């Protein structure tokens, strides 16, 4: 390796490891996030669904009605008149549900709904006319309604027997979906903050101008930044994978060569974007803004934490050409589906292309002084 390139890369390593905060955000944060989200969405038990029981009779507004105690099997003189009740239904994973009922006035229920404390309330009684009040566009409220309706039904038609068989094998858990997304996110962050932000900072400090006033070739300077972050980014990914391997029992199902190609192409795409973003920015606020403008939409749309297939159909083709989506899908394919080199060549070429175009444009626009 060119000795000055080596010297530059080493200097950048020193700067990186001498900033404990930066080391944590690069190495610690993705692992902590994987751990928290992996735990949060696994083994969490049934969600407790809060439901309001609204009565129009001011005299009994603080007490749950008798019919609810009967339905829930807690008809008991001691409990009768209580304002709160928990009820668990279902025997098997998949049909279990836990409800917590609270008696309140309609005004209180509206307020609780606004605050997100409940997603649904019930008026009336099964003998008269039981009515459910909820936002039909709220999927969680609809699920609560269906679970409640099933639980309240005293006689279930038994002509069609149905069985729920829980799927819990490795590869289809939420954490299997999550880890490749976090890896892709970590590559994006390493480039945009590690390269883009660093270059912007050097310009703000006027150090960029000072460095290019020496005989050092600009290409060597930029390559040193790219190389340094690529090594760090590979280490970040490896650390995250080691954690996922031991803690969540995640295995790479596909080709390691394909994984290396996808990593390299994703890295090139985001390194190019980082050069473009940093090409003209001259102050901290604009730098922050530019990086957030690029990262935020991809965080939301690219299916890092949740599938983008829930977005409207017209949006999905656009989402699928975002670099973070291409990178995430390829990593997910390799890690969880076991796809090989042939299947990742097309997205990798796309990522290399994005990187090349952004890099060329960035260099053309680059404000060295």
């Amino acid at each position, binding site marked *: 390796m060119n*000795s*000055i390139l080596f*010297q*530059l890369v080493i*200097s950048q390593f*020193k*700067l990186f490891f*001498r*900033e404990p905060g930066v080391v944590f955000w690069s190495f610690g944060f993705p692992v902590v996030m994987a751990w928290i989200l992996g735990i949060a969405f696994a083994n969490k038990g049934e969600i407790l669904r809060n439901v309001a029981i609204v009565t129009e009779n001011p005299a009994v507004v603080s007490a749950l009605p008798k019919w609810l105690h009967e339905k829930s099997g807690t008809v008991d003189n001691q409990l009768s008149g209580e304002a709160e009740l928990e009820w668990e239904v279902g025997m098997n994973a998949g049909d279990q549900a836990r409800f917590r009922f609270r008696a309140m006035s309609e005004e209180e229920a509206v307020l609780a709904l606004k605050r997100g404390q409940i997603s649904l309330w019930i008026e009336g009684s099964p003998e008269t006319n039981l009515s459910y009040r909820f936002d039909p566009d709220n999927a969680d409220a609809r699920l609560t309604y269906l679970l409640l309706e099933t639980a309240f039904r005293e006689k279930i038609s038994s002509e069609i027997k149905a069985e729920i068989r829980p799927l819990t094998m490795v590869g289809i858990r939420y954490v299997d979906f999550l880890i490749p997304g976090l890896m892709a996110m970590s590559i994006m962050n390493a480039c945009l903050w590690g390269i883009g932000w660093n270059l912007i900072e050097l310009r703000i*400090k*006027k*150090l960029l*101008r*000072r*460095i290019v*006033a*020496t*005989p*050092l070739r600009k290409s060597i300077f930029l390559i040193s930044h790219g190389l340094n972050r690529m090594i760090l980014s590979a280490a970040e990914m490896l650390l995250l994978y080691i954690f996922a391997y031991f803690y969540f029992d995640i295995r790479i199902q596909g080709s390691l060569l394909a994984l290396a190609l996808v990593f390299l192409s994703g890295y090139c795409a985001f390194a190019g974007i980082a050069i473009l973003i940093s090409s003209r920015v001259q102050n901290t606020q604009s730098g922050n803004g530019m990086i957030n403008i690029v990262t935020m939409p991809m965080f939301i749309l690219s299916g890092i934490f949740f599938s983008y297939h829930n977005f409207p159909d017209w949006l999905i083709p656009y989402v699928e050409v975002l670099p973070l989506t291409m990178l995430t899908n390829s990593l997910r394919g390799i890690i969880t589906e076991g796809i090989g080199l042939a299947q990742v060549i097309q997205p990798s070429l796309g990522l290399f292309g994005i990187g090349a175009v952004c890099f060329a444009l960035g260099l053309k626009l680059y404000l060295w*002084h």
Partner: protein
Amino acid sequence: MTIEVRNVCKSFKDVDAVRNVSLRVESGEALALLGPNGAGKTTLVEMIEGVQIPDSGEIKILEKTWAKDEHFLRKEIGLALQETRFQDRLTVEETLGLFAGFYGLNQVRTREVLEIIQLESKRDTWVVQLSGGQRQRLALGIAILPRPQILILDEPTTGLDPNARRDLWKILEDFKSTGTTLILTTHYMEEAEFLCERIVMMDQGEILADGTLAQLLDKFGEGDLIEYVIDGSNPTDETNLLGGVLSCRWDSETGQGNLTVNSISETLPKFLDLIKNSEVSLTSLECRRRTLDDLFLAMSGRHLDE
């Protein structure tokens, strides 16, 4: 000749930063560009450094131009830009070593420069822990690393306390003996007087005066000054009659006045007699030789430190 600037102009949006400036600097010369903020000094030196490109005109350095010989010129020019902040968490030696690498220099030169800038004791200190004066010495060290033929320093002592400023002057004074051509921008007249034989005064993008200190004072600053503050009516009419007075000014609101005289020793006794015999009282008196700031004020209506 080392540097030749010919009819150079540079504008930023609506501001004409440098207007048709021509300047020749000989080898080994020490030249100060003196002027207040916004005078165009930094823009001019940045064009000489190849950091800015002139809108029109021509700059030749060591008979070469930036367009054709950038790589050569980068090796021959050492510079310290205004307000460069080096990486906080690299040590002094690492910072010097890194820049030495850019010039293809080895550790021996790094150690020599550490000694020249008197930072051997701080070699393992992070840049963030250095004082302002030490950081400026580090910037100077980086500038002299390649043993440049031309050294350009843009306001190297701005913001430093007097001691730190004197430390830097001492290093620069020693360095001048190597025969390097020095261009220095400053708005401190003492710095220009101390370090440079030739002074170029700039304002609003133009050169107002160019010469040695003695030449400038002889040409533009004839006479010494008697400055006073009085409590009472204007004595200007009588002061004109004192003899040896070249000009006089008086501000009725503040009571401040000054006389430009051929000889302080000749005029001062007469002035004091005049005050004694009049109904005004003298609250302050100062006699001094004219300075570059007085010249600049006379030429531009502004002080150098504005």
